[in-house]
């Protein structure tokens, strides 16, 4: 009995000391000697859409390997804009709910829509052709709502310029529409363009034909949609010519990877 107690005490002490050693230094050194923060970022598998929001595709291809995150200092979260709080298919009308600004990332490529839209590999054609991304914090969201209200009454559109959106690659601004900015990569022949939707179109930092460097600010996170109401988010598409036609491919894996690299962290897959 006494021996058992001694053994139990020793084992417990050793284990606790080892655990303490692990938790006191939650970082390790990457091959480039920069500290890596583990465990802060999580994501759900590609194709793991919200229940009853469509059928996703488990596309883990990093279609844009050189891409950086469209957001630098601001934390960004891939989230559904239709089926999460604030969305048209949600019972919760608060788009600034804290759950919209928390991990895990969730894929929304192939999410159910009502128009006949094609993609490279979604199981159906009534789909979302990009991913939706929330940026910042619930407080930033509330500030944007407040700014939006003031802008609607005539205040300067720059009031909403809180969260910058970056060029994810070197390229040329190849189109600017009423709610769309296209960025054609300079050197990646595989990709036709990145398409950004819903920036603050009145305060863009770029014009048609501008050459931009990766990391340049092209505009600000907002909810412009050509006069149609939508939530504050960035909708990001990736278009490539594949097998003879322009096709929408999933930006999800590329975005996760870009977040890891841009914010020097490792995202854990939850399944």
């Amino acid at each position: 009995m006494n021996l058992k107690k001694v053994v139990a005490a020793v084992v417990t002490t050793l284990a606790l000391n080892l655990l303490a050693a692990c938790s006191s230094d939650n970082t390790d050194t990457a091959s480039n000697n920069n500290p890596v923060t583990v465990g802060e970022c999580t994501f759900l598998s590609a194709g793991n859409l919200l229940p009853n929001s469509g059928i996703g595709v488990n596309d883990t291809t990093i279609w844009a390997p050189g891409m950086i995150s469209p957001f630098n200092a601001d934390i960004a979260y891939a989230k559904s804009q239709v089926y999460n709080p604030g969305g048209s298919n949600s019972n919760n009308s608060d788009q600034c709910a804290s759950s919209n600004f928390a991990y895990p990332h969730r894929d929304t490529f192939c999410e159910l829509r009502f128009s006949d839209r094609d993609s490279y590999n979604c199981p159906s054609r009534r789909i979302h052709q990009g991913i939706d991304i929330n940026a910042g914090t619930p407080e930033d969201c509330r500030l944007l709502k407040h700014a939006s209200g003031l802008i609607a009454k005539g205040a300067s559109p720059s009031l909403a310029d809180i969260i910058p959106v970056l060029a994810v690659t070197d390229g040329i601004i190849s189109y600017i529409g009423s709610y769309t900015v296209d960025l054609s990569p300079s050197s990646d022949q595989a990709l036709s363009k990145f398409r950004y939707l819903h920036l603050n179109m009145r305060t863009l930092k770029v014009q048609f034909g501008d050459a931009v460097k990766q990391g340049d600010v092209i505009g600000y996170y907002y909810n412009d949609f050509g006069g149609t109401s939508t939530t504050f988010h960035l909708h990001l598409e990736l278009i490539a010519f594949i097998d003879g036609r322009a096709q929408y491919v999933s930006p999800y894996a590329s975005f996760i990877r870009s977040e890891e690299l841009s914010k020097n962290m490792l995202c854990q897959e939850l399944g």
Partner: protein
Amino acid sequence: MQQCVSALSGLRIKSLFIGLTLSFLTCCAASNASINQTQNNQSENNRPKVVQRTIDWPAAQKLANRHSDIDIAQNKLSPVRKSVTAGTKLAVPLMLLPASYTSSVTLLSAFRFSSPLLLQTATGYTVVYKSSQVDVVVDASNAMMQTAGNRETVQQDFDGQYQHIEGGGGEKTIGRFGALYSVQLMCNKPAIPQCVTEAMLDEVINGLDVYPASVLSR
């Protein structure tokens, strides 16, 4: 009773030991991960290979030559060009809409399209025509990714399948002279029902014609 308590104590000790050991191993395994390691099932750099399409320049030139210098001058083609200098050879045949676009169309006749905005890209060019309701965007390319199951070698002209795009727009990819042209109608006012239709897009496609690249120097 004492034997039972002893047995239970032993069991608790073993469970505690196993649990703590597993916790330790999990903790340290996670912290030893490297930022340069992708997640287990992320497939980096396994995109399909990029292939260059074969452009039928003689056929394109023959058709382009139908547009004489006078014809071009009278049509008043005046692309506003960015990053394209006079004498630049484009990677693909240049296809534009004629200036007098309202003559034979019905659905697009109400739109007053701007002069084309053209810029050269890595694999071809992009040309944009703007109007208040609908913009025409054509992305042209001589390159594409080719999947393993695709053995397309005959690059005949084709018109692809129509698809809606975000915000009420529409797109078709067409093949001409071996090059690929993604023809998009972008809706500037998504609240308008039927802002863009396949019939409108077909009118644009039917209106595209090949021009000599010398128009860029005018």
